[in-house]
């Protein structure tokens, strides 16, 4: 879509090349390099950074306290009970993983589709992925009754001659999430290698040169290297795409494979993936908007980026809406009493409120407003929307996990679920952890891929030929 339907007198068009302009004019190789490298190499750290990092760190410490107490006393400190044996832990797990997905999507899928505009945001989108996976991956480990035996989920030769049980979706999770984490980290690191080279060469301090030199592995920009590098990136992107789709599919299996009405649904895989991207882009916005302001990167992360992300959210939002619709439809069409009751209870049962929160945040507000380009390009509004959608997506998981469990097959064992302070501490704690990690990232790593930005500058044009996008 990048080079197609050129409209003249569109401010978004670069008259020189007739390309959609995703970077403000007047940037040169040196200027962008300067701008981005300075953030990392400057010896002075802005006070604001310390402020936010302090808050994030404090909240993360709360997480630490919660987890220590958890290990000492047991998962009973949470609200989980009979019949709702899964609670916040799993909700947060799914939520965080979902958020991670947008990062991979931006860096991989948009790379495959040669979406040039991705370049400015893909690096910290990927970072977001990794930190989200860190937060997510924590939950399955700590939510089990005997965390110190977690390694039993790995197939390793042991003196008991017993092995994991490969029919269990939880075991699939183990492989999906670990693969996802590994590939994301590799992809992220490989992407940064040339920039490390730049930082090595621009760093004044001996330590900086030394560290970035190590990280860059002696990158020197040989075109041979570049070609292999590009192939590898493309392949990784090509692999990450099915991966990211599979990961949330597998996570949706945790529910879809169960017999529980409200879980046992074939619509889950697509609907989970779409939901993941939906919330992921929301999170990217939540991060990008303050960042570009704070580091004056408006020239690199332009309104056009925000606008595009708005469009993606609109699209995925509608897929999600379709998912909700199908659930309701099937509840009626299946003529199964289990489904019908489950859905009635989901909407009007004692916990019906959560369903309506979800509908409001995920459908009512965003899907009505995101149509307008004016709103899509209004920074403050998009920030607001991103928060709303993230809330909505959290509640989606709450609805799926809790309202399906608390009233299932045998009415005699119907129960309820009331979160404890420990539940909240653990959840909020991960937000703090995420923030802290992310701030470390923006301080010490190039948050925007310089080499890829360079390719988009006018200077990179050789004669009439273009080197638009990252791919070619």
């Amino acid at each position: 879509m990048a080079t197609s339907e050129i409209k003249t007198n569109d401010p978004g068009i670069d008259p020189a090349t007739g390309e959609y302009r995703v970077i403000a004019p007047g940037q040169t190789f040196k200027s962008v390099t300067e701008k981005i490298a300075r953030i990392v190499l400057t010896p002075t750290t802005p006070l604001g950074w310390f402020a936010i990092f302090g808050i994030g760190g404090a909240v993360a410490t709360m997480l630490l306290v919660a987890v220590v107490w958890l290990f000492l006393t047991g998962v009973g400190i949470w609200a989980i009970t009979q019949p709702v044996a899964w609670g916040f832990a799993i909700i947060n797990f799914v939520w965080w993983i979902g958020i991670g997905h947008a990062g991979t999507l931006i860096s991989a899928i948009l790379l495959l589709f040669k979406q040039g505009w991705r370049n400015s945001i893909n690096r910290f989108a990927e970072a977001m992925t990794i930190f989200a996976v860190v937060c997510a991956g924590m939950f399955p480990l700590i939510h089990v009754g005997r965390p110190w035996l977690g390694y039993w989920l790995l197939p390793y030769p042991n003196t008991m001659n017993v092995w994991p049980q490969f029919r269990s979706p939880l075991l699939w999770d183990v492989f999906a999430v670990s693969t996802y984490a590994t590939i994301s980290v590799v992809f992220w690191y490989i992407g940064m290698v040339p920039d490390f080279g730049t930082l090595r060469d621009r760093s004044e301090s001996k330590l900086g040169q030394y560290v970035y030199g190590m990280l860059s592995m002696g990158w020197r920009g040989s075109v041979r290297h570049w070609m292999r590098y590009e192939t590898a990136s493309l392949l990784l992107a090509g692999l990450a795409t099915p991966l990211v789709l599979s990961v949330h599919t597998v996570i949706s299996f945790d529910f879809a494979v169960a017999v529980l009405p409200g879980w046992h649904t074939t619509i889950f895989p697509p609907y989970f993936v779409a939901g993941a991207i939906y919330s992921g882009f929301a999170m990217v916005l939540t991060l990008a908007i303050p960042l570009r302001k704070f580091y004056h990167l408006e020239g690199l992360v332009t309104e056009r980026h925000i606008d595009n992300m708005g469009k993606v959210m609109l699209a995925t939002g509608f897929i999600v809406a379709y998912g909700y619709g199908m659930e309701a439809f099937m509840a009626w069409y299946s003529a199964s009493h289990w489904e019908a009751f489950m859905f009635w209870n989901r909407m009007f049962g004692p916990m019906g409120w959560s369903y309506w929160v979800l509908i409001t945040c995920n459908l009512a507000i965003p899907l009505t407003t995101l149509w307008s380009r004016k709103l899509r390009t209004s920074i403050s509004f998009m920030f607001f929307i991103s928060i709303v959608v993230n809330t909505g997506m959290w509640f989606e998981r709450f609805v799926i996990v809790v309202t399906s469990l608390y009233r299932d097959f045998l009415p005699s064992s119907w129960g309820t679920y009331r979160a404890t302070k420990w539940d909240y501490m653990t959840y909020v704690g991960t937000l703090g952890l995420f923030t802290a990690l992310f701030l470390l990232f923006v301080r010490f790593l190039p948050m925007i891929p310089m080499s890829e930005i360079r390719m988009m500058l006018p200077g990179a044009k050789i004669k009439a030929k273009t080197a638009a996008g990252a791919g070619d």
Partner: protein
Amino acid sequence: MAQIFDRSSNALARASLVLTGLIVIALGVTLDQLQRSPWVTRQGQRPDQPVPFSHKHHVQGLGLQCQYCHVTVERSSYAGIPPTKTCMNCHAQIWTNAQLLQPVRDSWATGRSLVWTKVHDLPDYVYFNHSIHVNKGIGCASCHGRVDQMPLMYAQNTLQMEWCLNCHRNPAKNLRPTSQIYNMAWEAPAESRPVWCTAADAQSGAPTAESVNCVTKDPAGAGPEMASLDLPARGAAKGLAGDVAAAGLPAMPVYRKFTSQEELGLFLVKHYKIRTPRELSSCEVCHR
């Protein structure tokens, strides 16, 4: 601008990459070995005991029967640790003032137990039953080793789950005639030492052994010497005394000759009605 790194750094960098890989592998291998090591399993270790009791001396030297001390081995899940009384049966007369036996005499005098340290210690969630093993043709030595050659008791085997399964998945390779259960020196049949067995039609309700009878001398020869005669016939051990009874049957039954453990094992599996490996390796067999 000059080099940051010295020439050697390239080699160093690559080496360290390889090394990291190797270390990870080595670590894995070490842990895998560690979990099987005596440090964890206590295999072969001789804990300090109040009295340096020698099975070698009592079994090999004096020819005491296993059940003289471990009386309930055929009836109960526990083989039974002998009460001080059992020691005093003899040691009231002999070695009455041996220093080594002071703790025994103290225990006898004070009525306080001798506190031994468990050598074959299974986790609490494992429910092992001696009687069924002994009644179905697993000899003491199969698990405990040549106790008659152990001056101080130690665990011959790891007693880890994989070790148990090893046999539960293929009992045939360890089965022996019930008449040979307590025979420490029993060795699998071979050309040099064949075994002759006969199986009457198993009468339901009767102990396994009564339907099967095995001898180590050719029964065709002059009057088969029953292997079971090696044992003192004791009413208590019905299952084993059974052999004698079976031998006393009027019509001399047909004996089959075995020269290898495989054949014998399969024969015994059939006639002792040993459950299938699938059943024997089912979780609830040992864990409740």
